[in-house]
């Protein structure tokens, strides 16, 4: 969590956040806007209805650089369960950094450039909290001919929502040609950027990486569109929670594994066959024999939100798990949560109690996402 005893870092958009009236809070070592004057509810709903602009420059942009694609992909596969050998040009993939006991060190996005001239390099985006930690972890496990290079001189913006394409293509026509989880180099009004069709809200949208000195220009240009509103960390969290996505350090961490976290889909078939990912023996055993606990979606019956740390009990009052992130879902106009429960209680529709301020509040295990994803997938 944030350490206020140290000077907080600022993203290239810090002055703009302040100018826009952002309420600044410490987050993962950065001074970030939790909301703007519109407030979390309006920001959240606007993103689902039109388009929201997020400053995600606090996230770590890195490159893994080796002599050729195979060498770099195999180096990344030492620390992840994904298949990067067959990752095609211009494609990206969500993955997990796993330690030797199968714990999740971080979650990350991995991108292969569309240009064969860039082969040997893979782009990584890691959590702000994972900067440094991930760098040390990855570097300690790399072969000598593959290097991890940080790109901290870059800004990163996310434009999310059903109007994102219409807005972005007026400045960056190439963006319209992307489908979900693909990326390209592109110009935004003449500025060299890397654009991908991705995000963490469950909506269609884009992430745009650019040299830090151009971040404010790109942000101001996008904010001039009437459909675009600046969105703070508060709505970013409620949007990703409704989308059923994990927040590192809350829903997943080094004490959770991909099976209990319900992220088995991140383990590629080839990696399962070859059993060559970190803690493969342990994780394959969990896949075949089941994990003790499982991450599930939870809808409280009433209006009271159940927050992180809240105990989950069965109807007899025995504690069977804990909420890992919970709050209010503005699009559902109801509280939502994620948490881990004993696997026997993980089935959809299961009736549970949430212990909120000492009282048992009835709730139900439900499938995620809570709000359907609206990604623009390739046809």
């Amino acid at each position, binding site marked *: 969590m944030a350490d206020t005893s140290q000077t907080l870092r600022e993203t290239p958009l810090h002055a703009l956040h302040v100018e826009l009236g952002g309420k600044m809070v410490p987050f993962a070592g950065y001074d970030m806007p*939790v909301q703007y004057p519109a407030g*979390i509810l309006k920001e959240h709903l606007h993103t689902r209805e039109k388009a929201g602009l997020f400053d995600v420059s606090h996230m770590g942009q890195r490159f893994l650089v080796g002599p050729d694609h195979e060498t770099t992909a195999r180096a990344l596969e030492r620390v992840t369960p994904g298949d990067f050998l067959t990752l095609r040009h211009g494609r990206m993939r969500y993955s997990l950094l796993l330690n030797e006991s199968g714990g999740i060190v971080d979650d990350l996005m991995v991108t292969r450039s569309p240009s064969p001239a860039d082969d040997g390099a893979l782009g990584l985006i890691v959590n702000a909290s994972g900067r440094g930690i991930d760098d040390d972890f990855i570097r300690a496990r790399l072969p000598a001919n593959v290097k991890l290079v940080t790109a901290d001189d870059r800004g990163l913006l996310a434009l999310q929502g059903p109007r994102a394409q219409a807005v972005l293509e007026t400045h960056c026509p190439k963006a319209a040609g992307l489908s979900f989880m693909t990326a390209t180099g592109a110009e935004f009004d003449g500025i060299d950027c890397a654009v991908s069709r991705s995000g963490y809200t469950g909506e269609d949208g884009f992430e745009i990486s650019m040299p830090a000195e151009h971040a404010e220009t790109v942000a101001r240009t996008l904010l001039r569109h009437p459909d675009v509103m600046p969105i703070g960390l508060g709505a970013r969290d409620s949007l990703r929670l409704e989308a059923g996505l994990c927040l590192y350090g809350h829903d997943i961490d080094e004490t959770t594994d991909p099976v209990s976290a319900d992220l088995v889909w991140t383990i590629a078939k080839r990696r399962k066959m070859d059993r060559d990912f970190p803690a493969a023996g342990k994780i394959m055993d969990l896949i075949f024999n089941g994990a003790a606990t499982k991450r599930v979606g939870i809808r409280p019956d009433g209006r009271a939100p159940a927050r992180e740390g809240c105990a989950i009990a069965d109807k007899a009052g025995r504690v069977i798990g804990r909420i890992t992130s919970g709050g209010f879902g503005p699009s559902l106009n109801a509280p939502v949560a994620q948490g881990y429960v004993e696997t026997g209680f993980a089935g959809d529709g299961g009736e549970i109690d949430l212990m909120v301020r000492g009282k048992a509040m009835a709730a139900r295990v439900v499938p995620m996402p809570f709000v359907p994803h609206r990604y623009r997938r390739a046809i």
Partner: protein
Amino acid sequence: MSETRFTEQHEWVRVEDGEATVGITKFAAEQLGDVVFVELPETGRKIGAGGEAAVVESVKAASEVYAPVGGEVTSANAALADDPATVNADPEGEGWFFKLKLADAGEFAKLMTKDQYDAFVKGL
């Protein structure tokens, strides 16, 4: 004749004919952001001054609301269950939380006046 006083925890309390109405201040409502849920005390409950009386939840977090003065709860603002956003729209009016039968007028006199509270907020 009514008078309103304030606490350092950002509650307001207005006393009229021995009945105290309690809510959270405009400053508190702004700090919390969009209120999405309010838990209110049951009628008849006796609460001491400074005791936990209610809970207000924004999208981000839950906060306790304390009774600025002690007494027995005479009513709670049921309208907040359906429309918790009233707390943001009119925190020191329609967004009141609960009413108490004031047990000790001396407790009320010890609280901050409006001017004192405004100065207190300015110093935060």
